[in-house]
């Protein structure tokens, strides 16, 4: 059978009206399983196979400008009309000229779980059976829904500057719904998680944790009116950091669109920094990280980029396009976040009265200001050994102000799209009660 990508790149390479082009073929095989508490309801097997083509042409009204357009082809679809459409679309737009990435040494970052590649159907069955064994033990909470998605994707990128690279990813995603209580007092927890390999999912440990938290929600009281230390741990730290504000303010695309006011060399904080200094990398080099990869969708090598160094903004996360426009290094458009270990043991951060927020309804600060007022799904008022669960209040504050007065734990952990301290203790955040008990 003819290689469809080769036919397309030959066709693109033969054209004189293109300033550049990129073609990426992605082939995916996935297995999906959907179950209620007692039995499997649906099993699905999925394949996808498509090719994305990006072309760069001189603008038809101004040769000093360029235009870009993207088309996608399904397997078996004729390429020529799609390429013609892409060229015509690109010629109509007007943008500053930029250059696509050229060949470079690609990092060797692990992204594939051989167990998933060998037999994705067995992997999904095995995960579900482990969960079923865990839920068979007596607990104060019960599983009511489990969804599993296991995928193996292979991609092959070729561009006009000579990049010809392949990479593969595996991914497992889950969603569990866990219930506690009966009748009007019934509560639930939705738990979802993405990882690249089976070894990074502790099914039994996660079940214990989610079941315990769901049982705590059943006995949770109303949120207190509170101003004081707030602790986040594990996936809550990941949610806080990846909630949009830092991503927007450090994005080269946002800077070019004049949405981000951040400039290299400026402090990321508007006031005095009272907590640990903030240092942060955007990285595609965390083994099995959500965004880990040898190259990104433009063909740029995976990198580890220092975004913020001791409170000072260093550089934008920028694709080749926006790096050219902003005259900054091309780092790639998206990545996982890495924060260095703090100086304080976690045990010390958990000492003294505080509130711990475990989950929000949806933590969604304003992207440019960082202001937030987000409903808490589960929190605890902690005083010594006493941990009183609550839900329903609003956590109110500002992402950047909070990060200006935080202490990070010396222990670190990996949470899919975040590698860094397991615990953050914010000196002072506000909780307002919002729901009647």
């Amino acid at each position, binding site marked *: 059978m003819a290689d469809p990508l080769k036919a397309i790149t030959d066709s693109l390479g033969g054209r004189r009206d293109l300033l550049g082009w990129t073609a990426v073929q992605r082939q995916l095989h996935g297995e999906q399983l959907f179950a209620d508490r007692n039995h499997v309801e649906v099993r699905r097997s999925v394949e996808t196979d498509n090719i994305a083509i990006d072309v760069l042409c001189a603008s038809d009204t101004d040769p000093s400008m360029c235009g870009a*357009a993207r*088309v996608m082809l*399904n397997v078996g679809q004729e390429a020529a009309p799609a390429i013609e459409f892409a060229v015509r*679309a690109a010629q109509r737009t007007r943008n500053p000229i930029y250059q696509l990435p050229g060949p470079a040494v690609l990092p060797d970052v692990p992204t594939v779980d051989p167990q998933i590649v060998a037999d994705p159907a067995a992997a999904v069955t095995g995960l579900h059976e482990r969960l079923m064994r865990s839920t068979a033990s007596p607990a104060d909470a019960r599983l009511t829904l489990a969804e599993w998605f296991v995928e193996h994707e292979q991609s092959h990128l070729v561009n006009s500057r000579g990049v010809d690279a392949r990479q593969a990813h595996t991914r497992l995603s889950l969603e569990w719904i866990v219930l506690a209580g009966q009748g009007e007092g019934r509560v639930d927890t939705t738990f979802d998680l993405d990882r690249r390999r089976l070894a990074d999912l502790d099914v039994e440990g996660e079940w214990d944790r989610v079941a315990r938290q769901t049982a705590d929600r059943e006995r949770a009281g109303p949120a207190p009116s509170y101003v004081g230390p707030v602790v986040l741990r594990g996936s809550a730290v990941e949610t806080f950091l990846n909630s949009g504000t830092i991503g927007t303010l450090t994005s080269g695309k946002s800077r070019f669109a*004049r949405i981000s*006011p951040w400039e290299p060399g400026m402090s990321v904080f508007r006031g005095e920094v009272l907590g640990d200094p903030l240092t942060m990398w955007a990285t595609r080099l965390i083994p099995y990280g959500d965004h880990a990869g040898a190259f990104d969708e433009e063909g740029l090598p995976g990198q580890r980029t220092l975004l913020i160094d001791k409170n000072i903004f260093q550089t934008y996360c920028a694709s080749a396009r926006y790096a050219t426009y902003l005259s900054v290094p091309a780092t790639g458009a998206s990545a996982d976040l890495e924060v260095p270990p703090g100086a304080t043991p976690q045990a010390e951060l958990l000492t003294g009265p505080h509130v711990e927020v475990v989950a929000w309804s949806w933590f969604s600060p304003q992207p440019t200001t960082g202001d937030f*007022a987000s*409903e808490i799904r589960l929190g605890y008022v902690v005083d010594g050994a006493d941990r009183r669960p609550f839900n329903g209040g609003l956590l*109110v504050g500002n992402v950047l102000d909070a990060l200006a007065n935080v202490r990070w734990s010396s222990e670190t952990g990996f949470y899919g799209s975040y590698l860094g301290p397991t615990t953050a203790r914010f000196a002072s955040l506000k909780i307002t009660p919002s*729901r009647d008990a």
Partner: protein
Amino acid sequence: MIDLRPELGAAVAKLEQRSPYAAVLLSSREGISIEVEQQEEKISQLPLSAGIVVTCQANGILMERSLPGFEAGRLEQAVRALHQELPAAQNRTPAADGDVAVRDFATSGKLPAGDLRLEDKLERCRDIQRRLAKIDPRVVNARVGYVEQSEASVFRSRSQDLAQEVVRLRLFVMAILSQDGQVRYDWLGKGGTGGWELLDYTDEELQTIVEGAARMFSAERIEPGEHTVVTGPGVSGVLAHESFGHGVETDLFPKERARAFDYLGRKVGSPLVDIVDDPSLDGGYASYFFDDEGMLSEPTTIVDKGIFRSGISDWLSARTLKLKRTANGRRQDYTRKPYARMSNTYFGPGATSVEDLFAQVERGVYLNRWVNGMEDPQGWGIQVTCHYGREILRGKLTDRVFSPVSLSGYVPQVLDTIRAVGPLVLMDQGTCGKGHKEYVPNSAGGPHLLLQVKLG
């Protein structure tokens, strides 16, 4: 796709030799986007998703194969694989030709997207961008985003042979202003199933976007607590969507995930509350003629005068619970399973003019620009995050603005506080997930509502 349609009946018949139920869906989702900004323009094809879904049932399990493209060989491959997995002998008689309902549908509009050249669409976007950019010197970027989604599907079961083509259009406009090193923005969106006549922006509308962004420079944090609130149509829609939209998706019912299941036929809000889901809404952004499981579209009254009347269902949950099947079995695309999902969900109209509704407010907040909402079908909590709220004083809007504003509360309490409902229903357009995945085009709306809720 159309070449494969005649083959589908035989595929269903073969599977029903061994399965009590079989169906084939051919599904194609494609489209284009145009982005025009101050310094940049882009045209892209939307991510293409086109393929075959073969469904059958065996031993209580629904089994599906999803394969890319519409080649006959792939259909045969999927049918053969499933047939081998099925237990032998159900021996259903294939449907006779006369028993199959064959219907074809397509959306239309006064100015269909297909009648405009790509260049015309780009130029229309540029025109809006230019008009927006020159309104105020603080506008550092004016952003116009156009999305044209074409969905084609063929559904074949033993009794149905349905085809539809649905074109959804959306045009989103955003003004980004800078002042003293600070950046603020506001936006407006329009869209529907129809033509470009839905996407016109008047100069007055563009002016309100810039004024909204400019007011944000002086925004304050709101004093947390209970407030008298007037919601605009978009925020009213999110309230409907998050309260008795997600909460009545019947695939949640057998899993005890929705408190609403215990409230069928019971009071859940003020008698002024009517909530409807209608995939057949003329021109609605989330409209379709039949769902991804072959159910023909018609409206469902979910809440009638404050009483919960009906959920919205997919095939599996309606069958399991012996509930009325509604046309709400929707897939993100051919690679995903169907769930019970909303389409166009809205509060029904009332009798109070908007002027009279505002006149009832001595001091309150007007919420008309939502960012996101989150459902809690089990706990009946609700959170709606708004970009900003405007102060109402003695029935009039002032220039005082609060941002961001989160509305939260217990659904029946929130709905019970509604004491006036405006007369005109307007719809917003967007995308809705089930939790944080399974995204489908969606629309929500309503009239202005007057209610008492907690803000923070």
